[in-house]
């Protein structure tokens, strides 16, 4: 079934120029990772070497080698959120997350006047303080 889905994704983008990134984005979204087997399959399908595909996969922060089943909270820790005090929230957030939730650092969600900001499941949250962040993490 997984192979079918991969074949569908490849077929959906195959005729586009520069198809690799759109394919990888869909693969990451569907499987939560771009693993070694997928790299082989993509290299064969797109007539690229495995090294080329691996080079692309390992370059971009969004592609993970292994799927992480935990829910993710993306916390912005760029300058604007730093100026609004995000660093003071990090330790507490990590305590609230424990091993259950993965807190991923991102640099900028474009909510720079209303930080600290975070994203969960595509939803954005702003004006976070310790309590609100802990509530968000617990709700995941």
């Amino acid at each position: 079934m997984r192979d079918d889905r991969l074949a569908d994704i490849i077929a959906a983008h195959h005729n586009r120029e520069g198809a690799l990134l759109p394919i990888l984005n869909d693969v990451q979204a569907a499987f939560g990772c771009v693993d070694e087997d997928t790299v082989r399959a993509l290299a064969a399908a797109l007539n690229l070497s495995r090294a080329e595909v691996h080079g692309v996969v390992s370059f971009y922060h969004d592609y993970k080698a292994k799927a992480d089943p935990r829910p993710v909270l993306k916390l912005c820790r760029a300058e604007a959120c730093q100026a609004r005090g995000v660093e003071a929230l990090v330790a507490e957030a990590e305590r609230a997350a424990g091993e259950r939730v993965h807190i991923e650092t991102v640099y900028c969600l474009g909510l720079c006047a209303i930080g600290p900001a975070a994203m969960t499941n595509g939803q954005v949250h702003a004006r976070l303080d310790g309590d609100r962040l802990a509530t968000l993490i617990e709700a995941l």
Partner: protein
Amino acid sequence: MTIRISDDAAALACGADAVAEAFAKAGRTAERVSSWGMHWLEPLVEVDGIGYGPVMPDRVGDILAGRADDLRIGAVAEHPFIKSQQRLTFARFGKTRPLSLDDYAATGGWKGLERARALGADDTIAEVLASGLRGRGGAGFPAGIKWRTVADAPGPRKFIVCNADEGDSGTFADRMVMEGDPFMLIEGLAIAGLAVGAGKAYVYIRSEYPHAIAKMEAAAALASPIIAPFEVEIRTGAGAYVCGEETSLLNSLEGKRGEVRAKPPLPAHEGLFGCPTVINNVLTLAAVPFVLAEGAKAYADYGMGRSRGTMPVQLAGNIRHGGLYEIAFGITLGALVNEIGGGTASGRPVRAVQVGGPLGAYVPVSQFDLPFDYEAFAAADGLIGHGGIVVFDDSVDMARQARFAMQFCAVESCGKCTPCRIGAVRGVETIDRLMAGGRTRGAVENLPQIHNAPRRKRAAEDEVALLRDLCETMKFGSLCALGGFTPYPVLSALNHFPEDFVVESAAEGNAA
């Protein structure tokens, strides 16, 4: 009664959907429009032109009953933050529904494209050239000259690429354009395509902006009959900051590692898939419909010196009145931060502002008379970049910010050139040593064979000299702005805030 609530990500992040739902429960439908850009008031509710903000869902009943005077800001369009702006690019913001073709056409949309079609390619380029419009991504290169170069370049296929990889912290104008007025950007793309003879445009949007991606995809589909045969395709990035660099973005679009290309060849000659390519920032392309619709002179009448037109300034960080402020070039930094921004949100004194994103200089309060202008900032060893201003209060540790700049560069470096790839890592180490008060010589350095090595401990000032040397190497030796501009925040922190780089305990103990 017309109720308007923004559906911009900034409003959503503050809870606008819950407020709209509360209105629905009360039997009223709220029209979802673009954002006025007054982010400290989000979620902003506009009832027949009168604004209330920030509104929580439990206050909706009060607003409808006329009991929300504490939230009332008066007529939104007359608010001093809006009234004092010169909105050319952001003229529709707060007023129209982002994905309504009717709203867009009713507010002067497509007029620029119509005029460009009537003028023809050559005169369209001449118009953009005469407007003095410069690249809003940061480099400030004249858009008209870039377009002319691509128009003159031979080739069966040409492309327009819109750089919407807005990764700089403190910037959100591109996001607002894509979420709030996507047709304006599409019109700008279509005009560029017509001017240079390109049949297709790619919009490369960073993956951290899911709302912008969704709106642009919907808008591109809706607008396709209007701009046909010109095509617009939306592409999504994958979390690499460096892909905001134009040649790296082109590689990424081609499905490769987002590594920077050496120039020449310029993208205008050999860009996407080896074809002549115009690559412009969102704000540059979004300014084009106004230039064409109202004429080059109407745009060039704004601004100072060689910086013509308006700049959508983004007030961010620790600022009381943060948001989008579009104004002609020439306004001083102090006026933006103190008069318009209202100082810090924390109420403490402003200590530094970083202008132009993670690669921009930290400007001290003593330089607040600096006018917002490409040349003035360059002369003061800074850059206006994409127009983001991040305010810090007096609790900021500038040594830590300098270290962060190097660390960010190390994380995001594409790895192609040595000054950036290795220099950034060495920069972090050097700042760490500096803050630890220098370092003692290692075992190898103390060997008798290394007879010309100094025997004394490396002091903090030696580390500063090393750091300055490293910054010079990065600035002049890097292939692109990531490595080349990282020295700006580092050196500006070092030059303007040297007291933050002094370690108390390091003063004594320079033993042999």
